[in-house]
């Protein structure tokens, strides 16, 4: 379809502002731009149609099954959106006087109380805007802790399992740490012997998800956190997979010292095509004094990871969600997320091979390396063929410890019949790989576009539209 710039007609526009009712001020020439920016000139109706057309080329949670592993694509309730759109929240200036923002404080306080109960932590900050941003905040707490003990110079290493999300090692590096990768054992969990070998006086901490990225709850978790603590390090819980265990077991009770949780995964706030999220960071009491502040709002020389106090409107949505679910509902969501994953895995079994054939948590990984050897059809080809069936493909080629991986996370908001239908599609594609591998290698056939040429995109980057093109 055409770009909005290509639909622009000189002289068109929308009527938004009245004429200026005070004397017009203007910039001196040395401060003025030479030429106006080239922006679309459009009537409102054409803008509306343009975006409606774009909308038709997007697959959202409500468009169909979205089992994107590690991303927890659950249904995003409408009431949460409605609450976050209340003028009593949207019109509030972040620097408004304290006595005029009691409602915002109530939102933060209530959300904090509930989340700390779910995390098993003592305090938290809402400043981080996303999961990776929360990781950065959490590891900075660890850094501050070691510094406060005069221990910063020798504790220079953060341990990260080889199955971790890329954000973990990238975060450790942003915080000035050397990353030590520890291999996984054959069951996908932390290899205790390998962990023992890397722990020492230079250990600043460990970053871990539990359940881990292959969807398995590491039953040695208490042993793992105890060993890290004995070595003088702290334990960071990457909350990407919290949806599996909320209300069942708490990261704080597993021995973790701090945690981030993606409100845009576990607590049902929408992903917005890549954001905004919110990455609340919880911690134990002894780290609370290092939590970030706003220089302008709090007047303190503390850690600060962004302006003001965070993605407040996202917190409103998460609060509405937790209030809806309540004591029983939070646990129910976790249980059904796990049930749905196990059910889907069992229905696919016998075709594509699970990387770990055992009870999983909220997600599971298929290992297509054998299938690829037999048929020549890769995980990518299967993913692309799924698109033709109106299904968003699973996460591909992650975690790195499984070759030809497809990672599926159905979430609790899929019904049994949807899982049955999805499993049916997987079984059908499994067979198709033997019957007509070439068809799958050229898939998708009925999507918005065929496979894009990513090599050309990277070799000759075209990153903006230009008037002269």
């Amino acid at each position: 379809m055409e770009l909005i710039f290509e639909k622009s007609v000189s002289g068109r526009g929308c009527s938004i502002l009245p004429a200026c009712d005070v004397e017009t001020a203007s910039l001196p020439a040395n401060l003025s731009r030479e030429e106006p920016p080239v922006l679309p000139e459009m009537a409102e109706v054409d803008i509306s149609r343009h975006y409606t057309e774009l909308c038709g080329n997007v697959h959202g949670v409500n468009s169909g099954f979205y089992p994107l592993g590690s991303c927890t694509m659950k249904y995003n309730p409408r009431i949460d959106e409605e609450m976050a759109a209340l003028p009593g929240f949207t019109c509030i200036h972040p620097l408004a006087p304290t006595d005029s923002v009691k409602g915002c404080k109530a939102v933060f306080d209530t959300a904090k109380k509930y989340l700390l109960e779910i995390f098993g932590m003592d305090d938290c900050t809402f400043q981080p805007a996303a999961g990776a941003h929360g990781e950065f905040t959490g590891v900075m707490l660890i850094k501050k802790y070691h510094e406060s003990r005069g221990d910063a110079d020798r504790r220079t290493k953060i341990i990260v399992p080889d199955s971790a999300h890329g954000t973990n090692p990238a975060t450790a590096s942003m915080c000035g740490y050397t990353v030590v990768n520890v291999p996984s054992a054959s069951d996908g969990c932390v290899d205790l012997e390998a962990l023992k070998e890397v722990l020492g006086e230079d250990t600043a901490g460990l970053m871990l998800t539990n359940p881990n990225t292959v969807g398995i709850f590491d039953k040695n978790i208490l042993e793992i956190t105890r060993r890290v603590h004995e070595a003088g390090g702290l334990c960071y819980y990457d909350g990407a997979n919290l949806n599996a265990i909320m209300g069942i077991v708490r990261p704080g009770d597993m021995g973790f010292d701090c945690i981030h949780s993606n409100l845009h995964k576990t607590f049902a706030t929408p992903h917005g095509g890549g954001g905004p999220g919110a990455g609340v960071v919880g911690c134990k009491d002894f780290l609370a004094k290092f939590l970030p502040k706003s220089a302008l709002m709090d007047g303190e020389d503390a850690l600060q990871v962004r302006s003001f106090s965070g993605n407040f409107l996202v917190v409103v949505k998460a609060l509405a969600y937790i209030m809806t679910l309540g004591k029983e509902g939070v646990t129910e969501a976790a249980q059904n997320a796990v049930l749905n994953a196990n059910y889907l895995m069992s229905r696919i079994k016998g075709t594509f091979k699970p990387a770990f054939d055992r009870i999983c948590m909220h997600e599971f990984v298929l290992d297509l390396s054998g299938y690829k050897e037999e048929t020549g059809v890769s995980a990518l080809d299967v993913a692309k063929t799924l698109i033709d069936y109106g299904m968003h493909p699973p996460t591909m080629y992650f975690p790195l410890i499984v070759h030809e991986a497809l990672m599926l996370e159905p979430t609790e908001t899929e019904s049994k019949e949807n899982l049955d239908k999805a499993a049916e599609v997987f079984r059908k594609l499994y067979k198709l790989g033997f019957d007509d591998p070439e068809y799958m290698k050229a898939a998708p056939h009925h999507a918005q576009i065929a496979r894009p040429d990513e090599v050309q995109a990277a070799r000759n980057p075209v990153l903006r539209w230009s008037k002269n093109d």
Partner: protein
Amino acid sequence: MNFPNELKYSKDHEWVKTEGETAIIGISDFAQDALGDIVFVNLPEAGDEVVAGEVFGDLESVKAVSDMLSPVSGTVAAVNEELADTPEILNSDPYGAWIIKVEGITDTEDLMDADAYAEFCKED
């Protein structure tokens, strides 16, 4: 796979050609094949020091990035500027498309001849 006899090879899949005091370094056919379509090359600048066994640049394909480890220690005398705009020549002509030239060599890794390297690639 093509491994010319006149070149030496490192276990990190770089080839080395010695011309007088200068070592010319590129990546092997095996390396370019494993990486797939190379889309960008991060190069050092002339005058930079490189150390044997350490990273001197990296190669990007669409979905991966791979460090290049120097087989020699010395000073970069020249970099192949052509790679900035046409990184694909590393795929199409891995032995013609040199990457850096190093002078003032103070150390060299143990390198393999073509036969030993071909054997090494089979195991890798």
